[in-house]
């Protein structure tokens, strides 16, 4: 009797210590349920689907500690996954032509997409991979636009994954500087119109039209608008068209550096570059070009932006990252992904508050979300419909079928309308039931279920319950 009491007090103390060290006051230990149904629900939401035996394993070792582990993925060993990843095509030191760059882009994204499926099925850092999927989608770029594809592998690896449980401001800044985003939303072209005139008039006549699409450089609002509408404040966040323009002005000059191949550089300098071809392909990394920057003062959301350099863009990012509408927008999107299509207002408010009071600490935000009563509430159980990626990955995890050759499954994802990295609009793939459930999609899922699962499992995998998580 005394021993078991001592043990349970000790256990409580350990748990309290764990939560205290993780930032939560011991007095506020959230009630994470321990029963099997709750474990299954948590695994449905925080992984790409439970594997055989997962529910029992996590129940025994404790759901709280499992959640804690998933919130600290660096400490989870993922060597087995690494062994399964396909090798990407080697990146040449430089590209001789746009066609070569595009081919490299296509091939790299194909491997990345295959690996995305492999990670979803085999990574032990499941929550991290779910969040990489979420945040890539939030900061969506489209592999099919021009040469965006060639920048996508580094985008996911360097701009997204490192920050998914870090600070939102860091994530935002990394996407703003990524060649993938700069190209996809045209900011690499955006320039102070006067600056553009000056530069154009200095070019030889053959290149006056600015290249393939005949665009004369000027202010491009595309990124400025999506930055406010989609990435931060949200469409109802209270910004105006004038704010969009001012933000766009602040980001003029944020562009992609050209890569001049060694041999070509010498030939170009000798005047042998073909007329009509850009002297160098812009296939490099981020570069701020002051000559393209609109140096005038700006007013963004009531703040004065001045300085005349790259710091203006950083200042804008600071303002919008800290804006209350951003906290709400992000909170709602996360709640929609992890709780239900129409999440309770109280939950959204609480998560937004946590976002603000931690200055966008995404680990803290996720903790608040996962340990909320709404997360485990009965209304949330089975409330979400699986997206095609969720569906395919969870089918492999549930059946234990081997995914050593992922490419046929990419065709399945294409059939279902969710080819990774191939969402054309910046809004990214939808996460709600009505985006994915229609007559044709259900038939396709039934057939893909038969492709993945053996005869005993096909009916279950293609059936109604398995479409939900």
């Amino acid at each position, binding site marked *: 009797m005394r021993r078991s009491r001592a043990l349970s007090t000790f256990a409580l103390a350990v748990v309290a210590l764990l939560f205290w060290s993780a930032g939560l006051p011991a007095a506020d230990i959230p009630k994470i349920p321990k029963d099997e149904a709750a474990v299954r629900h948590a695994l449905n939401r925080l992984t790409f689907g439970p594997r055989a035996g997962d529910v029992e394993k996590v129940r025994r070792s404790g759901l709280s500690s499992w959640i804690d582990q998933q919130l600290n993925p660096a400490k989870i060993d993922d060597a087995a996954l690494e062994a399964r990843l396909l090798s990407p095509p080697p990146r040449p030191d430089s590209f001789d032509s746009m066609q070569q760059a595009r081919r490299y882009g296509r091939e790299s994204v194909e491997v990345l997409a295959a690996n995305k499926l492999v990670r979803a099925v085999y990574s032990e850092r499941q929550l991290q991979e779910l969040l990489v999927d979420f945040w890539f989608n939030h900061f969506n770029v489209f592999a099919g636009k021009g040469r965006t594809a060639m920048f996508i592998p580094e985008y996911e690896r360097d701009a997204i994954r490192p920050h998914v449980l870090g600070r939102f401001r860091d994530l935002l800044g990394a996407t703003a500087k990524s060649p993938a985003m700069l190209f996809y939303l045209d900011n690499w072209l955006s320039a102070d119109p006067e600056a553009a005139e000056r530069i154009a008039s200095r070019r030889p006549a053959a290149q006056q039209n600015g290249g393939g699409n005949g665009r004369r450089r000027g202010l491009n609002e595309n990124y400025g608008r999506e930055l406010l509408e989609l990435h931060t404040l949200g469409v109802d966040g209270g910004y105006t068209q004038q704010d969009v323009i001012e933000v766009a002005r602040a980001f003029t000059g944020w562009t992609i550096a050209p890569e001049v191949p060694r041999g070509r550089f010498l030939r170009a300098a000798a005047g042998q570059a073909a007329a009509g071809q850009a002297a160098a392909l812009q296939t490099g990394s981020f570069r701020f070009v002051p000559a393209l920057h609109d140096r005038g003062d700006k007013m963004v959301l009531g703040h004065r932006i001045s300085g005349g350099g790259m710091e203006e863009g950083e200042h804008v990012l600071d303002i919008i990252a800290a804006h209350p509408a951003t906290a709400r927008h992000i909170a709602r999107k996360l709640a929609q992904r992890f709780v239900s299509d129409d999440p309770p207002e109280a939950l959204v408010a609480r998560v937004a508050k946590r976002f603000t009071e931690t200055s966008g600490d995404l680990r803290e935000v996720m903790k608040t979300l996962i340990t909320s009563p709404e997360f485990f509430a009965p209304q949330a159980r089975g409330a979400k*419909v699986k997206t095609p990626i969720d569906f395919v990955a969870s089918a492999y995890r549930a059946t234990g079928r081997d995914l050593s050759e992922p490419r046929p499954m990419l065709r399945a994802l294409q059939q279902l309308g969710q080819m990774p990295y191939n969402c054309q609009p910046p809004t990214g793939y939808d996460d709600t039931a009505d985006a994915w459930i*229609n*007559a044709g999609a*259900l038939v396709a899922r039934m057939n893909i279920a*038969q492709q993945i699962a053996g005869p005993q499992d096909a009916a279950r995998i293609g059936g109604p319950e398995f479409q939900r998580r």
Partner: protein
Amino acid sequence: MTSRRVFLKSGAMTMLSLGFAPSFLARAAAAAPTRKRLLIAIFQRGAVDGLNMIVPFGEAEYYRLRPNIAVPRPGGGDTTAIDLDGFFGLHPRMAALKPLWDNHSLAIVHACGSPDSTRSHFDAQDYMETATPGVKATRDGWLNRYLRASGAAAPLRGVAIARQMPRTLQGPAPALAFPAVETFTVRGGATAERDFQQAFEHASDPLLTSGAREAFEAMRILRSATNGDYRPSSGVDYPRSPFGQALQEIARIAKADVGLEVAFAESTGWDHHVNEGSVDGQLALRLDDVSRGIAALAADLGDRMADTIVLTMSEFGRAAAENGNAGTDHGHGNAMMLIGGPVKGGAVYGKWPGLQPEQRFEGRDLAVTTDFRDVFSEVVTQHLGLPSAAIAKVFPGFTGGPSLDVVRA
């Protein structure tokens, strides 16, 4: 509401949802169904070069701007433009459509397009498919909104022959997308299908149950109405291309009398920045495919063409001048085609703005003098019969221009 299946004299099956007594049903069954009006939308993805497709050979500037790739003036047999009205001509590889011009079932709207000036394929396609140019937030397509505004939900009113649901038909109204009728089926035979059907029927899940029900109904209807291999009408020869085969699927479904009202197919490969060709070459091959496909479809549908309009569209046109690679860059205004009995064919509609530098859009492209939504809305009201009061639901934010009067009511 009870579902009844009623056999009609022609042998096709129709789903009727009624709560009436059987004798009424028997009388309803004996009456032939009124033939539904059909719209077949064809999207030429990649920005077809409208100026080499519908050639303004009467415009001298056209030849100055395209020294290498212009299509020659009519008069030289099949290596020159096919004269339509003394000013415009068809590209010679579109000869298959000339008989439709001659019998007044082909109309063209030139200098047609979007008020938005984006030259991004993807944005412009989205704007055209949602019919809300400049608005990226629109998730549903204009044809899905038409389905919602115009009648009871039914699984086979809207069908896209495509691998994925195109934006044009995306939305809450039921619509189907499949690459071929024979792929829209549950593999594994009748037992697998029955097992799935029962599982979905017994799930206490309104969303999935109703989605599945639509699917199984549509499959059942299609299966019994489209037995075995499809044989087009005698003498009809569809091109063996994906596009040609897609049109054949549409004809098959239309002739099965399963309630098809709006269909969609796409033709790709129009983005000719390099080596476009003129009388021969890349563009010529694509135009040949599209023309022979549409001509075959029209011939196959036969007298159903009296109630059908085929409408072609593309996200924008191409620059008036050729570029340094014997191709053309992205432009603005383009040409749309309408084919069908209800079309007042044999004429080119719209105001031709000319190709002089000051007449071009931004000094480089064919200008737009007709908003594409004017064409869409005329088809939807005059042909499909949507009341004008409901037009705002299908084309939100659009105040139409003067009627083109290209479609008979």
